[in-house]
């Protein structure tokens, strides 16, 4: 049930991103909600349910961005989750700064994966310049949004079981 709730939170945040930032004319600085959810689920969730959750979340993001081939963000989400599981087992995040740095790094890796997959699979893709120019702003926006999104996911997790004492991925 908690995985479904994380999926729901991710879906609502994805749906909120465009109109919210469009109102304040900040469409270019949408934080990478999918990658943040992948990092969170990598730490807090189980492997198989987590992979299925992020796979469906990726498909939903594909639905919000139908200009890209369907399956692209699903693939990025699954790879991000698996990569985060491998990386975060070796790194012990004890404070907010490493957590935000991890979110920024994950966003940059995800943007790189987007460029690679779009170049290979999207016959019409010609946005390499845009990828390069939004690489860092996107990572910055994702880094700043990380504590907020993790706090929301933590709060939702608490509805389905005892909350981790440290909260927000801190170990």
């Amino acid at each position, binding site marked *: 049930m908690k995985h479904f709730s994380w999926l729901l939170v991710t879906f609502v945040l994805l749906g909120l991103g465009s109109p919210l930032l*469009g109102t304040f004319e900040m469409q270019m600085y949408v934080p990478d909600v999918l990658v943040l959810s992948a990092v969170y689920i990598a730490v807090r969730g189980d492997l198989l349910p987590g992979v299925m959750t992020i796979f469906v979340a990726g498909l939903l993001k594909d639905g919000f961005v139908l*200009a890209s081939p369907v399956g*692209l963000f699903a693939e990025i989400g*699954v790879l991000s989750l698996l990569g985060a599981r491998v990386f975060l087992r070796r790194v012990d995040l004890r404070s907010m700064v490493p957590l935000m740095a991890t979110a920024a790094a994950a966003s940059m890796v995800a943007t790189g994966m987007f460029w690679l997959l779009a170049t290979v699979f999207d016959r*019409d893709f010609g946005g390499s310049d845009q990828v390069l120019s939004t690489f860092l702003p996107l990572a910055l926006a994702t880094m700043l949004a990380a504590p907020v999104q993790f706090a929301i996911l933590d709060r939702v997790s608490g509805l389905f079981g005892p909350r981790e004492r440290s909260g927000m991925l801190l170990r």
Partner: protein
Amino acid sequence: MRSWLADGPTGYPLRDLLLRYRRTLLLGLALALPLALMYYHGKVRTQTSLLESMLLTITAPIQDATGSVLRGGLNLVDGYILLTSVRHRNRELMAENQVLLGEALRSRQLAEELRRVKKLCEFRESRKQLVTVPARVIGHEVSQFYRVVRVHVDVAGVTGLREGMAVVTHNGVVGRLEKVSGGYADVMLVTDDRSRIHATIAGKGVVGSVRGQGKRNEFGARFVHLDRAERREPIAADDAVLTTGHDRVFPPGLEIGHVSSARSTQKGAYHEFTLTPAVPLATLEEVLIVIEHHAPKRPRPKPQASRARRLRIDPANTPDG
């Protein structure tokens, strides 16, 4: 069925095998399935697939709903909450003013919406050869790499929307439909990197192709045309760029944009100019989808004078001739 699963060809129970490797199989499926989907959907296609249609049906209403809730919340903040300190100072008068201000705000918004809709109606009246349906923009780009907006058709019961249909406003060309599902559709803007429109520069006799640049913070397009030595007037800044209709997508004579600068970049036999779109794409609210367009009726040629009348005035038949 159970006995077939229990007795596999190798002798090991197939069910036990699947259970033993279910983790690997599911992970492999989660990685391989998106690749297969990308391979299929990444090809150049003209129709919306079943999966795309389903995703559009699921995600578009949430975009519409969150946008409505957000606009309502901002109206509440602007119209009421921010006035509470004033209301404390003069409760009765400011309570009345608060209501009036809220109504004035709504009236201004309605007036602005009415102005936009009126201009669209005037456009429709002036272009009776175009059959159009109105649509409302419910979502701007959610990706930094594609210039796409999502629209919802306001007219109930409209059928026949297809990918590739032109989308316009009274200002000019917006783009074309890319994905369609029910009453929702994605519109590829004229500034998207994939956009191509056959165009001409008004009054200069120059024909070429407008291509989107996909720029992030500036909307631009390239106009590529052949360098013709017989062209008399050079292309200048602010020259209007219009559709020719030769691509059979956009009706002829619609404004795409204007030339930003007379300076061009030569690439072989082609010259590239930078354009500014005619439509303010960042603040798009309502659009018109062109369902079909009919060629304008040509005026009938005047009948020629009869042979007898021509002979009557023939100078050769005058007494002096």
